[in-house]
């Protein structure tokens, strides 16, 4: 069972957007995909046309003593997703510290008893907490999303997250980097993407996702870009990313 953990190197690198779009494109490639939003900002659901006001999510279900898996949805095009849900501060603190015990995530995933072909994509917060650490450990591939700018570069070299992953070979071995929101017109970003390439070498996914207005517009339409603009460059690049994932897991499973 391919379990992907998608985590931004820092905030607002387009983490949820990548998860939603890759899930959608994998599904277009006839894969069975479930996305699991572990990020308390609860953005992922908006890519799948869920109501702004709807507070439902696995975390809120747990808080309200309902089975968490009843918060699962299926969007029109067939992607299954589990939103985080809306919590207030005390509820969130309670969830993190009281409810989520060690290995909670991997046990829950095991209990779901999915077929081996099922893709599970974990949308993970960039901050390290119980949930994101469990996600990093439970998955079989980490995609670390970064944008080609200096703050990402500095986070990459030295941050709590990077230090955590780099000091654990079992994590750093399965971690790959994705350059997202690469501006075509910026000379600096182009040069920085080369710096990233030199730093990451083979760990860099060979697909850059450009900063394409279509992606933003698709989000504004509460949709994914392959539905909104199927002929756009963004769709093509994200599809290449999905295909790259397919090849990676075929290689690993065989």
């Amino acid at each position, binding site marked *: 069972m391919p379990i992907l953990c998608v985590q931004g190197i820092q905030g607002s690198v387009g983490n949820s957007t990548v998860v939603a779009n890759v899930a959608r494109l994998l599904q277009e490639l006839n894969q069975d995909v479930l996305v699991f939003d572990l990020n308390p900002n609860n953005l992922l659901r908006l890519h799948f046309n869920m109501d702004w006001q709807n507070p439902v999510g696995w975390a809120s279900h747990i808080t309200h003593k309902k089975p968490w898996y009843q918060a699962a949805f299926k969007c029109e095009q067939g992607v299954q997703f589990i939103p985080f849900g809306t919590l207030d501060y005390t509820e969130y603190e309670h969830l993190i510290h009281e409810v989520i015990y060690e290995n909670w995530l991997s046990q829950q995933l095991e209990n779901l008893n999915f077929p081996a072909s099922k893709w599970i994509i974990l949308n993970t917060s960039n901050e390290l907490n119980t949930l994101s650490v469990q996600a990093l450990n439970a998955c079989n591939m980490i995609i670390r999303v970064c944008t080609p700018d200096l703050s990402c570069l500095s986070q990459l070299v030295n941050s709590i997250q990077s230090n955590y992953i780099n000091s654990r070979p079992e994590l750093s071995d399965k971690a790959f980097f994705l350059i997202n929101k690469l501006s*075509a*017109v910026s000379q600096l970003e*182009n040069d920085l993407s*080369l710096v990233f*390439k030199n730093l990451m070498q083979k760990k860099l996914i060979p697909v850059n996702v*450009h*900063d*394409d*207005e*279509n992606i933003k517009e698709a989000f504004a339409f509460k949709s994914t870009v392959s539905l909104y*603009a*199927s*002929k*756009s*460059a*963004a769709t*093509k690049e994200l599809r290449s990313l999905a295909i790259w994932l397919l090849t990676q897991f075929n290689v690993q499973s065989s």
Partner: protein
Amino acid sequence: MRDSIYFNESNDSYVEQVVNSILVNSNLIENWLSFKNDILSDKSTRISTFIASLIYLITFLLLTEENRLRVPYILKHYYPHINFDTVNGWDILRFFLQSIWLITVRTSIVKKTIDDNIALTVRILAFIKAALYSPFKKTTHFIRLKTDQFDKSHSINEDNYQNDFHPFAYVLLIIFIASISVTIPFTIYAQAIFSFLLWIVAVLAYPIVGQISRLVLITLSLTISSRYLWWRYSETINIDSSIDTFFGIVLIFAETYTWIILFLGFFQSVWPLERKPKTLPENTNQWPSVDIFIPTYNEALDIVKITTLAAINIDWPKEKLHIYILDDGNRPQFKEFCEQVNVGYLTRSDNIGAKAGNINQALTVTNGEYVTIFDCDHIPVRSFLQVTMGSFLAEKKLALLQTPHHFYSPDPFERNLNTFKKTPNENSLFYGVVQAGNDLWNAAFFCGSCAVLKRAPLLEVGGIAVETVTEDAHTALNLHRKGYHSAYLNIIQASGHATESLSAHIGQRIRWARGMAQVFRIDNPLLGPGLSLSQRLCYLNAMLHFFGGVPRLIFLLAPLGFLVFHSFSIYASGIEILLYALPAIIHSSITSAYMQGRYRHSFWAEIYETVLAWYIAYPTTVALFNPKIGSFNVTAKGGLIKDSFFDLTISKPYLFLIGLNLVGIGFAIFRYIYGPTHEDLTVSINLVWTLYNLIVLGGAISVAQESRQVRSEHRIEINTEVLLRKESGHLLTALMIDFSNSGLGLKFDSTAFTILKNEKLHVIIPRGDREFIFPIRAININNNSLSVVFDNLNLNQQLELVKCTYSRSDAWCSWDNYYNIDKPLSSLISILAVGFHGYVILAKKLPKPILKPFLIALHSKSFIQSLLPVNIVSHQY
């Protein structure tokens, strides 16, 4: 529900019911519109629309909706010669004939790419060939195995070859055997059997690839043509009659010349060396320093700029690469440009010695270990030095390495005969076979550009030679005389712009011819020190080649000697002439086709050489007697032929020759009717010869019809995925299909994105790890095709653009894939077509009253052809 009630209650007639049902069927109009869009364009005539609506109604009544939608495609597919937009009465006949043909004749015909007539001929020939070969299949297979073994054990490469033959005993033995088979007199029957047997061997050897068959074919061809020449000298010169003697000697002179060229040509390309690049040491400190010279005199900065930027892009350690523009024009804007891009700018106070003098002057003020020379319009790819320099490090005596001259635009022959990328051009034989052949004998010579020279040996021979107008070949000769080696690497590493007009092209060839004649006179390769015998022969061939003008003119006029003056220039019976001459011609054709492979198609040389013959005949002859006359003229390039026109000045000599040959035909008819019967065969032979001459001359006329050039900058094909960025920030993918200095041709999905005329965009071109972005403006949008021009690129962007286009090391890799292997027969047919076309051009120049019947005949021919059924590509609908 309401509809059905309505029908049940109505008392309308059946027809009215149908009409009503049609009218209420809301899909009718919608379907009609889509049907119309599928079958007609916006430019359709009213009649066409009417007929289409009739077809639609018929299909509506007879077919289901699903099948109805396929009808337009089926019609277009099975009736490709009917333009449904402009249907007229004749199209009904076409439709009718095509339908009958489809039903009765066409069963299942596979896709054909060539003309049906040719295909049929080829098929018949293939059948004959199969019938001929089948008895020998086992033998052929056996020979093939043996020759493969031989080739494997005797493979020659640049490391193990010996470029001279020493064992004189062998040579003497061969000469002895050869002289017997050449000189022994035969009866007519013996000669017939001998020729036939040799022909059988040649036909058997032809399909076998390898060195043995090459040698066998060469031996056979040399034997039979030597026999011919011996027979000519010993038996066919009539010294009794002064007019016969005169014509006989003139003809035998031309034939002897041809025989020498044939022999030297075979010798030169007997075993072309396929040299491979040598790897450079890992440590770039060991790489030598290189100066790049770009000599220019009057060329525009735009042309020199691209070459310079491409030279800057060459991958080589920056501190070991120095680029200099050698400006003989002393132009300030060149100096300014050089300062901007930080390359050297060299001028001199006088222009003595033209290009050679220019380079020699530059040699005195620069100091790289190697010198690379690019004509200002030869754009190198970035791998140029990495591909070439390894050979120098591996071979210490190497002083010169030449790479092919490649042209991305059509030369006048290719443009005017429409053979660009279809038939190999004049150049490709030289760079494909001749130079590689020379390389085996260590005689590859310098061609003025796209070559690397080692500085020390070059200085030792006094720099580039200035005594002649072909300084390049002469310099190579000087280097060879000093015992240095040369090499030829058949990998396209630079590309240039071909000469634009036929007159410029001829001007360039005149210069080469004059220069070679000068070298032949003042520094004859047969004489003087330092050369091996094989080098002497290779140089001799290169020079003698340019003396071909006079013999060619003799051949173009020779049949007139008999037809007009009734002189027996070959003093023999017609049957003898046939038995001696035909085998010689056939064998040399077979052998040439075998050796030239895909680098030249049979018979095309006839046209190239005929066009040049008149123009090089005079200068070479003059230079032979007085080598000092003649000056260097720069080959003008990059011009634009705005309107197609017929170059009357250039073609005057050919019109004259055509006139003479037409007179010859008149005489032939006269002699056939009124002459003695025993001369009929001789008359026929001369008639066929005259007709052949007329075809070739017609080809020369076709070349002189300069076709219009649409663009001043040639667009070069490419196939790369790029991104387009709209001002709004939207990105879309597109395919870059061609490029030029000023713009790009792109394909994009116009259903998903709209791009307006004059819209500003950016194009993002990936290259390796990097991507480069350029501002562009859309100038033409047609369905999915988009033409854009670059929007004020700055110097850095221009450099990057060259990096993404001309400089790519794979830019010209797939170039010779366009050429197919030579098929002598289809070549002959193409030549016939080209020759015929020449006369069509001439006919159109005739005064109207004379012209009219010709035009009517032409039109009626193409009209009748248009009525005939056409074949269609098999495809299921």
